[in-house]
């Protein structure tokens, strides 16, 4: 019998349903423990730090992987694959999806399996953008141009762009795509240097600030939800967001914009656009007492068949075969799959560092200050550079 820790959102619900199916099929009882999204991390960390073994499997957000893996909370899956007679996951999985499941990124051993395939997409109201003279936005300049026009016409009640400005994770999450699409990154390739305060960074920051100027007042406290709501309610024309919102936008009880929201990969800056990846992956807790059973369940749950069922339950897939499954893509609610697959393939993971939460926090504070205007963008970059250097010890 195994116990799985899941967040109490749609990802958790999906896995819960799958677990129920599995229990019916096999002779294994699968219990799911649900925690609010914001607290799954603590639950897992508590269990890991105290070796309590209350959970066998944990469904993780991908940025947590380095923390769990490098602190010995996660089981290395290599031997289990061997036991199952395979090298590793099959290559129907998207390569980016698999890359994050290895620690170190894309090179180390597998510590988890991808389950929900998320990456940011760019959402916009095509009709409005057209009105503003932009047919389909390819670059941030396009976005900015249209957004500016729309905000000016909006008279304080309609805005061309909206983003997550809340301090911490939200503002970082919405800045990173712009950051990357201007060729910047937090670290240099071999991760020996912090590279926030660079000309590329400054360029990204400039665009970000320009976008802020056309966004509604109060984005300083926005999270994904507010941003999505703004689009669904038709008070903003574009934003970066997670694909889960597609279903909401198309649900008339939740959206005024049914059929009016278009999707694209992240617009380009000076470099091609890149979205932030946000996968949910399953790993086995090191303190688990039922590791083999747990692995069996994970393998089962990530088969193409199950991933498809999961997709039908509302969670984006992680397998090419499911992304391209005609049965799905012909349905209105899955019409974004090609775009999403493209976005995942072009995605970048959040910098893989076991201290990522601390880095994200420090960076988030400076970005929040910049957005709020209490410091200049230049200062924000400089401070962030210093803060991250201090946290990582890179100088």
């Amino acid at each position, binding site marked *: 019998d195994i116990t799985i820790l899941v967040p109490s959102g749609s990802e958790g619900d999906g896995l819960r349903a799958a677990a129920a199916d599995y229990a019916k099929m096999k002779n294994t009882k699968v219990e799911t423990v649900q925690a609010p999204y*914001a607290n799954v*991390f*603590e639950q897992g*960390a508590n269990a*890991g*730090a*105290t*070796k309590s073994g209350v959970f066998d499997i944990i469904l993780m957000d991908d940025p947590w992987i380095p*923390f769990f893996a*490098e*602190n*010995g*909370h996660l089981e290395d899956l290599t031997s289990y694959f061997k036991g199952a007679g395979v090298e590793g996951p099959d290559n129907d999985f998207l390569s980016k999806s698999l890359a994050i499941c290895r620690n170190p990124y894309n090179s180390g051993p597998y510590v988890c399996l991808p389950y929900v395939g998320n990456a940011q997409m760019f959402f916009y109201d095509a009709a409005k953008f057209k009105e503003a003279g932009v047919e389909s936005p390819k670059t941030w300049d396009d976005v900015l141009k249209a957004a500016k026009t729309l905000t000016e016409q909006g008279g*304080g*009640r309609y805005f061309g762009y909206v983003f997550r*400005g*809340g*301090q*911490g*994770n*939200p*503002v970082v999450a919405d800045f990173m795509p712009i950051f990357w699409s201007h060729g910047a990154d937090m670290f240099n390739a071999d991760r020996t240097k912090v590279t926030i305060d660079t000309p590329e960074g400054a360029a990204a920051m400039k665009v970000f600030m320009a976008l802020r100027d056309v966004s*509604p*007042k*109060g*984005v*300083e*406290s*926005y*999270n994904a939800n*507010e941003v999505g*709501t*703004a689009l669904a*309610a038709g*008070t903003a024309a574009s934003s970066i967001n997670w694909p889960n919102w597609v279903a909401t936008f198309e649900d008339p009880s939740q959206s005024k914009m049914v059929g009016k929201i278009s999707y694209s990969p992240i617009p380009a800056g000076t470099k091609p656009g890149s979205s932030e990846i946000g996968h949910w992956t399953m790993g086995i807790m090191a303190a688990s007492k039922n590791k083999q059973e747990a692995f069996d369940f994970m393998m089962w749950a990530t088969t193409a068949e199950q991933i498809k069922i999961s997709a039908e339950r509302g969670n984006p897939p992680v397998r090419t075969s499911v992304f391209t499954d005609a049965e799905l893509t012909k349905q209105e609610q899955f019409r974004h799959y090609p775009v999403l697959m493209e976005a995942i393939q072009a995605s970048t993971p959040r910098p893989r560092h076991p*201290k990522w*939460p*601390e880095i994200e*926090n420090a960076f*988030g*504070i400076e970005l*929040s*200050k910049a*957005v*709020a*205007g*209490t*410091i200049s963008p230049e200062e924000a970059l400089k401070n962030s550079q210093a803060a991250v250097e201090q946290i990582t010890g890179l100088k």
Partner: protein
Amino acid sequence: MLKSDKGTMPKSLRPGGGLEHWTERHLRYLMLAPTVLILLALTIFPSVYMFYAAVHRISPNPDLPWEFVGIGNFARLLTDAQFHVALRNTAVFTIAAVTLEFLLGLGLALLLDRFIRRLGFLKTMLMIPMMLPPIAVAITWKLIYEPQFGVLNEIMFLLGLPVQAWAGDVNLAMFSIIVADVWQWTPFIFLLMLAGLASLPVEPYEAAALDGASSWRQFWDLTLPFLKPVIAIALLLRVMDALRLFDLVFILTGGGPADRTKVLSLYIYQVAYRFADPGYAAAMSLFVLFVTIVLSTWFMKRMRLAE
């Protein structure tokens, strides 16, 4: 005719005889014992753990030993700018929120006690905010503050006032948190004051009225002194809770914008869980505990509460 009660007379007057006698003699300990024992059992381990943790660097990896760092964690408090920001924000929040809650709660209790003695349901209605789950309260206020769709800005708009970003505005964020907290916890003070007022003696008020004291004087000279113990404990509890404010900030602002609403417990939470540094978190908690104890000791001395 009065019959003799001889039947109920004790057989012996010897002191120390019988269980009841023993019980009565030791009542002072017996009545206190359950509370003391429960609290001892429940706090000893956490306290020891906290002190122990505070002088170690604890890796989230359970296989690595704890590294003794002495006062290292405490020394960090001196240089940690984020901690200082959180400290200042917490102080601002605590002072403003508790003061407002106290004034409003006491005022309201006085008004109701004086003008509306019946209509108990009114009092209950005024208490509803604190009965709502804080998490639901935080979410509701988020909805109310929401700059685009929020009802508060709609009201501002209807009143012809400039709309604001509220929780999203650097200058208003803390204010917004305070308002929400005041909304939820004023009823707490209100409730305690109401109960305090309900058991006041009447006669001193009559005497004071004849001695020429105005209602205002009666309030200062009688009501406040009579309520002093309840006020003191209510304030203490509110301050303690304000020092651990979490839900509202977590949901409404996440500490932003620009760190303006980062409070201690949010920061401690981040350090303990997000940054996986429980040793440092314990040191900060000890610091908070220390400050709380010092403040409340001082406060109780001032209020001559211990007796």
